[in-house]
């Protein structure tokens, strides 16, 4: 199950802003296996969406260079020129479900045409065949096939989201990046979409990167969890370990901030705000908000291996497994 599908090493992305150069993605590395789901967790502004953009090469105009290495199914992506990337990687290798997908469908083109479009453009399929395939994917994500003939405004928010998901899956990509796919939806619709995702994952064996700030929903799909803070990965662990025994003080604080049913314990907010990425602190980026900071935090910690599948960027774990937190 775990032969590497996507390997990311030392990925960086800079933005040029009025205030100077801002490193939104800073030395991020992870691996996603075939049919595996990686959840990237983090609060707003921590660089999650920039990570998605960096992987998809959807860079805004003020983006500086991309650094690091990305390998998809054994193929190095960064050396590819834009045209090759567009033709060969986009949508067949990597597909994206965007954050604001309420508006991700062209209002004047029928949904079916938009879902079938990648097949026609990238694979040169004729219209009828592409639409038949789109109908199959519609069934898979739980939409009736005759919705293909509708316009986006005739679908509810949840249906639109399913249609966008169908669009991402239509060309059977190796990996789908979901950027906050359910944030704008109500709880029931969220659950419906998450169920559809689980089914797709089981049936197609597609890899997923699910980017979210929602700890509760993400736990349903996750095989691995990567926690981002101020542009960096601060913890990387398999899901069971992360949700039961988070290592980084930020991860622990984040878990404590989630409301739980049938427990007297009240959810605790994390005081303070993430640091500005224009002028990040020299040492550990979480230090200013950390309840357990000490002298070492003035230096940037490397990632320490805490368990076989858990790495934590925190000086508390300098001696392997000594401090277990909680």
């Amino acid at each position: 199950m775990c032969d590497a599908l996507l390997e990311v090493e030392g990925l960086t992305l800079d933005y040029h802003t009025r205030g100077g150069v801002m490193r939104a993605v800073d030395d991020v590395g992870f691996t996603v296996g075939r049919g595996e789901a990686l959840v990237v967790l983090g609060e707003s502004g921590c660089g999650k969406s920039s990570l998605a953009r960096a992987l998809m090469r959807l860079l805004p105009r003020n983006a500086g260079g991309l650094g690091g290495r990305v390998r998809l199914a054994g193929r190095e992506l960064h050396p590819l020129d834009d045209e090759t990337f567009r033709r060969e990687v986009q949508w067949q290798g990597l597909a994206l479900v965007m954050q604001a997908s309420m508006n991700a469908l062209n209002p004047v083109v029928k949904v079916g045409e938009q879902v079938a479009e990648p097949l026609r453009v990238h694979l040169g399929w004729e219209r009828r065949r592409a639409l038949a395939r789109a109908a199959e994917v519609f069934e898979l994500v739980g939409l009736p096939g005759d919705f293909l003939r509708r316009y986006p405004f005739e679908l509810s928010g949840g249906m639109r989201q399913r249609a966008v998901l169908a669009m991402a899956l239509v060309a059977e990509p190796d990996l789908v990046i979901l950027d906050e796919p359910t944030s704008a939806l109500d709880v029931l619709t969220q659950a419906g979409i998450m169920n559809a995702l689980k089914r797709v994952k089981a049936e197609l064996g597609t890899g997923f990167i699910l980017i979210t700030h929602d700890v509760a929903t993400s736990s349903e799909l996750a095989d691995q969890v990567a926690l981002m803070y101020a542009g960096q990965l601060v913890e990387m662990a398999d899901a069971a370990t992360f949700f039961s025994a988070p290592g980084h003080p930020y991860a622990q604080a984040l878990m404590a901030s989630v409301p739980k049913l049938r427990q007297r314990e009240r959810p605790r907010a994390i005081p303070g705000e993430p640091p500005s990425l224009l002028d990040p602190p020299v040492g550990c980026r979480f230090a200013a908000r950390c309840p357990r900071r000490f002298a070492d935090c003035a230096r940037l910690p490397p990632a320490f291996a805490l368990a076989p599948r858990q790495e934590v960027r925190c000086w508390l774990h300098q001696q392997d497994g000594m401090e277990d937190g909680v």
Partner: protein
Amino acid sequence: MMPRRSWGRDLRYLALYLVKRLLALLVTVLIGVYLTIVVANMGGQVDELRRVQIRSEAFEQVRADPAFQEMASAERNALVERRVALEVERLRLDEPFVLRSVDYLQRAMRLDLGRAEQMHSDAGSRRVSDIIVERLPATLLLFGTANLLVFFVAVGSALWLSRRYGGRVDRLVIALAPSSAAPGWFYGIFLILAFAFLVPLLPPGGMVAAPPPQGLAYAISLARHMLLPVAAMVLSSIFVSIYAWRTFFLIHASEDYVEMARAKGLPSRLIERRYILRPTLAPIITNFLLMLIGLWSGAIILEQVFNWPGLGSLLFQAIGFRDTPVIIGGVVIFAYLLAVTVLLLDLLYALLDPRVRILGEGRGGA
């Protein structure tokens, strides 16, 4: 869920919608034309001027006619009064203005524009419709050429610029945009000065050379005469048009669905056509059609500066002569054209935008 759609329903809805729009537009035209009639007659005050004019004309005629030289002055005055009364009755100036204005309105709405009071066409006709029709081709040719040129060049280069947003050409266009603060005739004066007098390459005004040449030579002469006014108009509006369209396209190029299309790896030509132009077709066409009807009004000062025999200078002369039928005639034609264009736009919107088409149907069917 929505009911299944059918062509029959679509058509029935469309017909109902068009009838409603038609009625609304008719009322609009009615109000517009009536206001023009009232304003052009200065609420009836022009009648007083006309009465004075009739009286002085009648007096002059009687005084100048040798047949009445020997007449006693009381008798002569009675004759003048009779003539004035006759003329007043002919022009129905004895009736209250309100009554006549309704009558005018009724005739204007039937496009019965009547006869001019002072002016006549070059061919000698006094019918307002003849006078207007004679001037129309000149205006349409000049303004059509200039505005079509500006429109297509602006939209095309704006699309090109929106891809190079922030580049050198883009900044140049932005810097030049304020040049449109000056109207076309302003540039016209300098162009005439430069290319007709300092370097006499082109004629300073008029539409063709004095004895109009025949055949191909006519076309060449026409083109030479059109060059300066067209250049003046293009100069005064091209940069701001490009700037406006570029901003328009930039806004629409940052829509989520355009971003999505980029993520899908679609070729940029396809993105431009299907994801930027197609959803924005309705406002583009609106702009185009409004520009087209704008052509019909001509431009008073520009036509004066270039001595161009178009509708603008006609209107200018008509105002000078207080020739109300000609002024009203021009406005009536313009109002009808505007109404027809707006109706056409409503129809096009319904055809182009599924949101208008289908949502409207839902409402119409309910």
